[in-house]
């Protein structure tokens, strides 16, 4: 491993974290403020990023906590340089809490209230003024050379087919192994897609507690599905997965967990969007729906996402670059717009797993240094907070 292969150009933050992007994040506290937030962010594109979401009111208990904590996690995310909170004025999510979270992490933060400013037009105009000032204030921050050990890499798969478990996920797994060897961190989510492979991850736990925690979380998700009295085969595997040759959730999971590497030790199991504090492998308790899952893992602190897809899928994120990797040569051609890295050569022996994973790691570091991903070029900024309870 040469030096050139283990460093990137990132943003060193005053709180010690390292960003790979430098966004002004415009956070609506509640769905009612989402349109104003999106218009403000668009006025300073591409620096501006909005987090339109469906929650922020009509929530109680754990469901409200998840919304609050997810938005707060984005307010202090390494890829965010400054924060503008757009409030309605009568909602449950507390704008001041989000602004305080950003400021306590060393980021400038302001609040605009739609009711306080007197309507959509005034609030949007005031927000655009503030957003421009924030963008100017963080525009002077420059990238510096950073060790790859500072990366938290989110590994994700979606639109899986037979090539995911045979090609793209094992290539990503080798990148995960190398990154952890360098001192970095990897996060794997989607508990339902660990079901059937949990014994392999638990056997690699660095402590009995971490392994037991994983088995309890998988058991809880399975029990939730069982309690509905339904067969999860309606969604796991999905109809597209089944057409693609995946027969059972066990088969899907065994292929999916290859993304987390072969040598990485399971260090920790954390709640949705909770901070990832350990180097090595962390499993996050997220649902299997792609956007909710990526939203949670980026909230936990992942700066960059590697997302494998056999069938092809466009998902991005508002603040983290999402690198699309496919092992399906046909998808690489038919969905070329959406694909960043084609590793289908490993199935035809045209490329070794070692060469493909070295190429992917180089891409991760280049994207971390500022190279645009397909999802960023196409404006894919999907964001969805996991809901635990019905809206009241």
């Amino acid at each position: 491993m040469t030096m050139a292969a283990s460093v990137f150009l990132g943003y060193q933050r005053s709180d010690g974290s390292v960003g790979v992007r430098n966004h002004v994040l415009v956070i609506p506290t509640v769905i009612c403020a989402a349109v104003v937030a999106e218009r403000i962010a668009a006025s300073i594109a591409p620096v501006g990023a909005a987090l339109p979401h469906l929650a922020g009111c009509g929530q109680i208990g754990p469901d409200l906590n998840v919304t609050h904590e997810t938005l707060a996690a984005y307010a202090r995310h390494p890829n965010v340089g400054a924060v503008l909170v757009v409030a309605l004025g009568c909602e449950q999510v507390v704008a001041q809490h989000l602004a305080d979270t950003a400021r306590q992490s060393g980021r400038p933060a302001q609040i605009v209230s739609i009711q306080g400013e007197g309507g959509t037009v005034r609030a949007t105009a005031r927000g655009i003024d503030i957003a421009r000032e924030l963008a100017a204030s963080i525009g002077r921050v420059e990238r510096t050379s950073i060790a790859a050990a500072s990366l938290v890499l989110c590994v994700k798969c979606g639109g899986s087919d037979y090539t995911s478990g045979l090609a793209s996920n094992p290539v990503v797994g080798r990148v995960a192994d190398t990154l952890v060897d360098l001192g970095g961190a990897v996060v794997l989510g989607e508990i339902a897609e660990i079901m059937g492979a949990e014994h392999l991850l638990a056997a690699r736990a660095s402590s009995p507690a971490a392994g037991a925690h994983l088995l309890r979380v998988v058991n809880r998700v399975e029990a939730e599905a069982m309690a509905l009295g339904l067969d999860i085969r309606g969604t796991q595997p999905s109809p597209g997965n089944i057409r693609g040759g995946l027969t059972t959730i066990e088969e899907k999971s065994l292929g999916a967990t290859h993304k987390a590497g072969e040598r990485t030790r399971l260090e920790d199991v954390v709640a949705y969007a909770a901070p990832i504090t350990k180097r090595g492998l962390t499993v996050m308790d997220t649902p299997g729906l792609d956007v909710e899952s990526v939203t949670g893992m980026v909230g936990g602190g992942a700066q960059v996402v590697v997302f494998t897809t056999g069938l092809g899928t466009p998902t991005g994120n508002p603040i983290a670059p999402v690198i699309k990797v496919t092992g399906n040569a046909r998808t690489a051609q038919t969905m070329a717009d959406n694909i960043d890295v084609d590793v289908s050569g490993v199935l035809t022996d045209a490329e070794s797993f070692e060469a493909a994973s070295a190429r992917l790691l180089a891409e991760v570091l280049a994207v971390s240094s500022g190279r645009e991903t397909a999802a960023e070029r196409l404006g894919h900024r999907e964001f969805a907070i996991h809901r635990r309870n019905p809206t009241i």
Partner: protein
Amino acid sequence: MTAAIVISAEDNVATALEPIERGQTIQTGGATVTAAEAIPRGHKIALRAIAVGDRVIKYGSPIGTASQAIVAGAHVHTHNVASGRGRGDLAAESATQTARIAEPPE
């Protein structure tokens, strides 16, 4: 390029990398098997006979159990393999309790 790939020595299925025709003989992972029916690309072919209730093995781990007798060379998919996980529809029969490998602690 081989027509089908076997991942682990314990596997009793291979994954077709190209469509396999009925009657086509393939060699993979040390086994030779003749397709009993057409196998679509990405789908699985049985490397040997699998009895009802026996485990179907891929990646060296069980991916389900045979719900019908599977002959060598047969297409192995949802019509003849049952998952044991998350089966709320079979909860009364405790399907998952027999299929789970690692039990969570109390």
